[in-house]
């Protein structure tokens, strides 16, 4: 008996030692740097691999690596030629001519043809279930004509639109394979699809036939990290090499770690307490304004991101400096008394109770909701919090609009003001807050039909002002973005859009 015990002990000690040695081995090999495989942690599963169908910002930032449009955005906020090698604007912005770049190939090595381009543009212009085109602005397209001999595509608009090139970042798909797009994505970008395991990971590999500068990292895995809570452990344990949006406290922890570099930028999101303007009591402008006065934005920033971040007052973030109106961030200074009197006027002297539905995988949004709910207590409003899983959020809140309020960040899909503002038109298919205002619609329509850039910007600003005046939502901030990358890689680029450009990252030599 005793002997047996001793033996058992000896074996267990040996096993532990072996395990420990094994673990050291893993950690060591990972630390010694840079390999051909690079793993990026992402906070949620992808809603679709088809770039035209994907709605989540977190999906689009991943697909950016596989797909390109005729033009593509660069990190400075300019549009640079991609599938097209040049663009000519004619008739004051009513006709656009694109000449395709020779030798641009899809990932199955087939060359991009003018009919692929026409097909892709038509696909985005075709009305879907709610009668809106996939890209709402494409309703302005009168015709797309192709000239195969000169590999030229001519887009004619119904009305001149100088912002139109920005929509041409819309991904070009191959006509022959597009019906399989969700299963086997086929783009022209620097990385090609390798495999996708739902709820787990998306694996990409370098496409060697890429027309542009080929990326240095060979294999990229986008690994779904279900909760932000485990990110630090994942990074330190070597499971993930990069994570684009850690919390500010995590950033502090990781910047003390010699294996990591922490870069700071902005997320380019409009984070807000989005209110369902159709649901009582949020159909009352006064109630919405009361909420705006009750919330202390600086306090939210202090709790959630150590005071970093930019307070905003409408659906526009500072990176879009041409349209951004800094004065709106002060439109609703925290004022408990004013909030209470507005509630009284609206017929809720004792407040009311409602539920904030938040996606549980975004700790920043959950934390924001916790702080808001505490702040609303002061004016007698009882805000309950309901955490839902990301898929449920997309279907119930974003698509079915079956919610009272939610905290989320809304991104811009391209470099125009309308990418942020079009959703608040009363008939917009993605108007998930059900905002409806005749003045807004009128101002937005005027902006869209205006060709003079300056006047147009004025109309867009009017739209922002209306969103703020009518308190469409409780606007909070453009959040700070802390990107953590393992040491030994450099070249990460912040974009004015929600994009993770892996091709720009290079291992140090």
């Amino acid at each position, binding site marked *: 008996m005793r002997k047996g015990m001793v033996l058992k002990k000896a074996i267990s000690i040996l096993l532990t030692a072996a395990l420990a040695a094994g673990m050291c081995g893993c950690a060591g090999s990972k630390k010694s740097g840079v390999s051909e495989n690079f793993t990026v942690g992402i906070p949620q599963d992808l809603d679709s691999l088809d770039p035209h169908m994907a709605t989540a910002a977190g999906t689009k930032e991943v697909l950016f690596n596989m797909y390109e449009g005729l033009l593509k955005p660069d990190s400075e906020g300019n549009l640079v030629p991609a599938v097209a090698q040049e663009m000519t604007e004619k008739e004051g912005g009513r006709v656009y001519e694109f000449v395709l770049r020779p030798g641009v190939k899809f990932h199955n090595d087939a060359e991009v043809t003018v009919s692929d381009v026409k097909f892709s543009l038509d696909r985005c212009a075709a009305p879907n279930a709610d009668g809106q085109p996939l890209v709402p602005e494409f309703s302005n397209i009168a015709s797309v004509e192709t000239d195969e001999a000169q590999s030229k595509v001519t887009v004619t608009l119904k009305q001149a639109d100088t912002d139109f090139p920005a929509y041409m970042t819309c991904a070009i798909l191959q006509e022959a394979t597009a019906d399989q797009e969700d299963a086997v994505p086929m783009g022209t970008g620097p990385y090609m699809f390798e495999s996708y395991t739902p709820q787990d990971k998306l694996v990409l590999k370098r496409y060697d036939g890429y027309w542009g500068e080929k990326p240095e990292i060979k294999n990229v895995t986008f690994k779904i990290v279900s*909760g*932000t809570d485990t990110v630090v452990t994942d990074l330190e344990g070597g499971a993930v090499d990069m994570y684009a949006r850690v919390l500010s406290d995590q950033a502090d922890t990781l910047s003390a770690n010699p294996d990591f570099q922490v870069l700071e930028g902005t997320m380019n999101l409009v984070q807000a307490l989005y209110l369902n303007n159709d649901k009582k009591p949020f159909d009352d402008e006064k109630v919405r304004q009361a909420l705006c006065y009750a919330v202390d934005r600086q306090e939210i920033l202090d*709790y959630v991101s150590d005071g970093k971040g930019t307070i905003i007052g409408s659906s526009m973030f500072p990176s879009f400096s041409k349209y951004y109106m800094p004065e709106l961030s002060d439109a609703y200074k925290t004022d408990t008394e004013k909030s209470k009197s507005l509630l009284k006027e609206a017929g809720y002297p004792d407040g009311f109770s409602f539920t904030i539905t938040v996606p549980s995988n975004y700790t920043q949004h959950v934390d924001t909701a916790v702080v808001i709910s505490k702040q609303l207590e002061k004016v007698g409003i009882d805000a*309950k*919090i*309901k955490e839902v899983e990301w898929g449920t959020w997309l279907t119930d809140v974003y698509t079915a609009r079956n919610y009272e309020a939610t905290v989320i960040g809304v991104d811009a899909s391209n470099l125009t003001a309308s990418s942020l503002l079009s959703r608040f038109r009363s008939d917009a298919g993605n108007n998930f807050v059900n905002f409806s205002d005749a003045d807004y619609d009128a101002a937005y329509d005027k902006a869209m039909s205006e060709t003079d850039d300056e006047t147009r910007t004025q109309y867009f600003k009017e739209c922002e002002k209306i969103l703020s005046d009518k308190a469409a939502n409780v606007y909070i901030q453009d959040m700070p973005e802390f990107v953590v990358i393992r040491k030994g890689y450099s070249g990460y680029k912040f974009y004015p859009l929600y994009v993770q450009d892996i091709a720009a990252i290079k291992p140090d030599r």
Partner: protein
Amino acid sequence: MKKLMKNKSFRAGLVITGVMVFLAIAGPFITPWDPEEMNRGLKFSGVSLSHIMGCDNFGRDIFSRVLYGLRTTMIVAVGTVFIGCAGGVIIGSLTGYFGGIFDTVVMRINDVLFAFPAVLIALVFVSLFGSSDVILIVALGVAFIPSFARMVRSEFLRNRSLDYVAAARLQGAGNFRIIFFHILPNAWPVLLQSVIIGFNNAVLAEAGMSFLGIGVQPPAASLGRMLSEAQSYIRVAPGYALFPGLVIILMVLGLGLMSRASYE
């Protein structure tokens, strides 16, 4: 029972469990702080006289949150084990005692339920009925039934052919009487074991569910939720993870000691 009281580990376990139950019940009277009150200045402040376990990422007093969390966790665990145990005893005793085709059919259904992970069953419940504390308890409780049922059934299988059961039957005792007054008391020691193990599992399951965001909803505290939230801040505020963890350990330890003593 007297014999049990003489056992040292049973007494130690009883004291620890007693203190935990007392803390859970009397929590609000012990701490002067509101568990949901935030304070910017106290974010991640360390252990001090006024905040004996320090403060979390919202500057909330961790000690108060641990007390309230203990209460939530205990309610969920007790409820879960109660539902699981009650359901398991009924199914297990009937199938084990009567046997035959009834046993086969019910136990196969039981096996099917057993094959699904508890979390999956709970997820189905939550998506059908929405998430709340009650739903969480029912969902976890149902998920716990199969393991109890199996255990009780095997005890009944073992006991039903023993002499004392035959003697009772000869005396004219009915099936119901034999099941609940003769065999069940004899299955008690084993049942107590699984109740305690079940309790521990329920604490962990509650932690897991809250972690997935389908359990206790913020800003309410539960030990599991606190643990998962503390992960991000483990370097900045180790106390945030340490204290809820310690309380879970103590709770499990107290029950574990009692269960071991009863086995001896």
